[in-house]
């Protein structure tokens, strides 16, 4: 694998996955996948950290290149972190092998190298 990727998981209250994706896209992420989950936390921890854990959760899974990973995490933390209504918790895990990802990046790079692919030539 030429380029290193990381998987970002963000666990957030149901209904706030769009906020996560919006923040992540601004920081350079592409697409993601959202699925449902159920949250649980000990009562003492909720009281200690003054957080109410809403049981209905969404998990946003993103695959981003290593060089934008920190920016994406920071953007999610700022716009959808524990201080926001979404109460998102985000973390990243290293990806050792992948298929189906690098081709898209390569295609984008190729297009950038060949501007005529992006802007069609005008013919007289």
């Amino acid at each position, binding site marked *: 694998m030429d380029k290193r990727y990381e998987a970002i998981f963000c666990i957030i209250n149901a209904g706030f996955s769009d906020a996560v994706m919006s923040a992540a896209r601004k920081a350079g992420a*592409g*697409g993601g*996948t959202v699925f449902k989950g159920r949250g649980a936390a000990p009562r003492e921890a909720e009281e200690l950290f003054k957080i109410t854990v809403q049981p209905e959760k969404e998990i946003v*899974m993103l695959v981003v290149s290593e060089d934008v990973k920190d920016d994406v995490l920071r953007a999610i933390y700022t716009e959808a972190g524990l201080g926001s209504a979404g109460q998102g918790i985000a973390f990243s895990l290293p990806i*050792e092998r992948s*298929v*189906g990802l690098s*081709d898209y990046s390569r295609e984008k790079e190729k297009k950038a190298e060949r501007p005529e692919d992006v802007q069609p030539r005008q013919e007289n």
Partner: protein
Amino acid sequence: MAEYSGEIKTGAENVAPSRLMMLVTVVQKGKGTFFADFLQTFDANLQVCVVGRGTARADAAEFLGLNEKNRTIIFSIVSEDRLDAIMDALESRFYTVNGKTGISFAIPLTSMIGKLSYGFLSNDRRLAKGGEANG
């Protein structure tokens, strides 16, 4: 059952023969069973399928062959030994099953406990008999 001494063991006796990886495979909804069965042939004994939705930009999704929004996410645990074969096979399947139909990536597991559990997850049949001896 052996009593826990509180001592953290280090050394070769606690090192698994092969690392385990969590394989995450995202495919179009409806192709989950096909890919789960396919991964099972590569010794993936534990698989969890979850239904989700994609948020990729239209151009990216189209390029990846994920035109529909609904997805099936398959979480599988596989042995690192099998990873190259799995990735190669998945890549060819992604290109042959109705065009380019998915993505897959592997995340390493850093630790686990239980010989029997390890044997099950890595499909190491030598660890199957005799029950779980110890961690």
